[in-house]
């Protein structure tokens, strides 16, 4: 059963074709990664799923239902939530307010406290920083906050855009451990965009490789990480 199906998706920035016919499928409760170099169109794809960008043609199906033309707030309501590239923390809101912003579209606000406790469990560091302004956190903490904030809308599909960007290697490892833990414990589906192909393929079930707006390769994460081409281009061998 697929939670997300993308069919022949085309996205343009003016005259520039950013995505040229993407087909991508995400199985329910899995971790799927999308790897590729700078400018391949990974972030464009995530932003199109979140409806921050509008496609020229193609379809995006969520649980088999067409969501291509929904507005960003409706996308969040249907159960897709994104932790954007570069974290984009609200730097002048406190950590707690940032988390509450994540639950912005939710109608059942009375469960908020349970959900806050839930994310503190995964990222206890955040609990120590509750009253601090978002902008004063370290890069790693901001990433934890961005992921937690995305979780606050109780998504079924979590889109993570480069969670390793600009973070100390040691922290990257622990954040990815938490991502796997999250998937195992709650069954939340994760679509992970990464440049760090090594770590991404080590946690994912399935992977796609993107290059200049097209998907050039896909397969089991294991087989991809042993693929000659991938090893050469993305794993630094």
């Amino acid at each position, binding site marked *: 059963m697929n939670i997300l199906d993308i069919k022949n998706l085309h996205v343009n920035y003016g005259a520039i074709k950013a995505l040229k016919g993407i087909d991508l499928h995400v199985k329910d409760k899995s971790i799927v990664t999308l790897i590729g170099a700078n400018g391949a169109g990974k972030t464009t794809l995530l932003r199109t799923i979140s409806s921050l960008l509008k496609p020229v043609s193609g379809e995006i199906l969520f649980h088999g239902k067409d969501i291509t033309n929904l507005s960003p707030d409706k996308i969040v309501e249907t159960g897709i939530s994104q932790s954007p590239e570069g974290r984009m923390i609200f*730097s002048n809101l406190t950590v707690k307010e940032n988390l509450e912003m994540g639950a*912005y579209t939710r109608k059942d606000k009375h469960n908020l406290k349970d959900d806050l406790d839930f994310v503190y469990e995964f990222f206890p560091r955040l609990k120590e920083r509750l009253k601090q302004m978002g902008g004063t956190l370290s890069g790693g903490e901001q990433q934890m906050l961005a992921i937690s904030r995305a979780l606050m809308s109780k998504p079924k599909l979590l889109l993570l855009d480069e969670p390793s960007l600009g973070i100390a290697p040691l922290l990257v490892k622990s954040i990815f451990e938490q991502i796997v833990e999250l998937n195992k414990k709650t069954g939340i589906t994760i679509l992970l965009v990464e440049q760090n192909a090594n770590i991404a393929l080590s946690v994912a079930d399935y992977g796609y490789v993107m290059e200049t707006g097209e998907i050039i390769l896909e397969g089991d994460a294991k087989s991809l990480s042993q693929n000659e081409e991938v090893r050469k281009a993305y794993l630094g061998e």
Partner: protein
Amino acid sequence: MKNKLLFLSSLVLVFIINLFAGNIDPYYYTILIYIGINIILASSLNLINGYTGQFSLGHAGFMAIGAYLSVSFSTYFAPFFIESFGQGIFGNTISFIILLLIGGIAAAIAGIIVGVPSLRLKGDYLAITTLGFAEIIRVIIQSLDVVGASQGFRGAYIFENGMKAAMIPADMSSVPYVFYSVPKYTNFFWTFAFVVIIIFFISNLMSSSYGRGFLAVKDDEIAAESMGVNTTKFKVIAFVSGAFFAGIAGALYGHFNLYINPEDFNFLKSVEIVVMVILGGMGSMIGVIIAAVILTILPEFLRGISEYRMIIYALLLIIMMLLRPQGLFGVQLRPGKKNKNK
């Protein structure tokens, strides 16, 4: 509940002060009213520029619409108002509430018309669009004979044959008429009642979880949007409610000054309001109020050294911006880091 009590008691306090306001020297009374009007203007612009992070430079345009519309209603339709509500204290109150709402709603509608298409623009572009809008409004008023064009507006002549005009046309000089001047409705109570209303409106809005949407839009639009905040909606709400209060301020101004001129609402007026917001600190309620008070009083204090007045005024602003760029009560933003990823 506690908030409601505070709100009502503030209104009562304003009412009580108003009972004694008659003893205040007229010069100080005038300054006091202008302070109140400027607080309303600056606070309403703060909602747009400060809290929501959009740069509007056309607040005088909304004020002009509010002022001109409510004043022309109160003069051209003066017989209607007098007939319907009488001229007692009660009738005047009802008339004035209607007139204030006319000014506010007209400005709010203008806010929707300008805001919906132009709020998709950012930063400088929005500033230029709103500035252009305010200038268009002023130029239109300047050529509208029905509100006195560039000579300003002080009342309406209603002729016996049913004609109405702001000035006596040459061929009508023999027809009997009644002149309805702008009624002096604005007083301490009304001005500061609206000061109280806007303060409570903004502080309630901003402390609600709904209001956090405005701050999120200011902080990072893309992040806000991916959290499911409808950013356009928030920008339009801020813009339209800001315009509404500017319209009210205009209506108060018109019914106090009893004479309005298009030049009262020129570019410099817009800049003056922006300066109050920046000086007070973007997004700081108390700072903006204090700045509005200071910037209304300061030119009066400097009246003694008349020809150097504006130089000193400008110098003070420059010094202020050098020493405290974030404004009197503004929070220092983290330098440089924002918008890196755009």
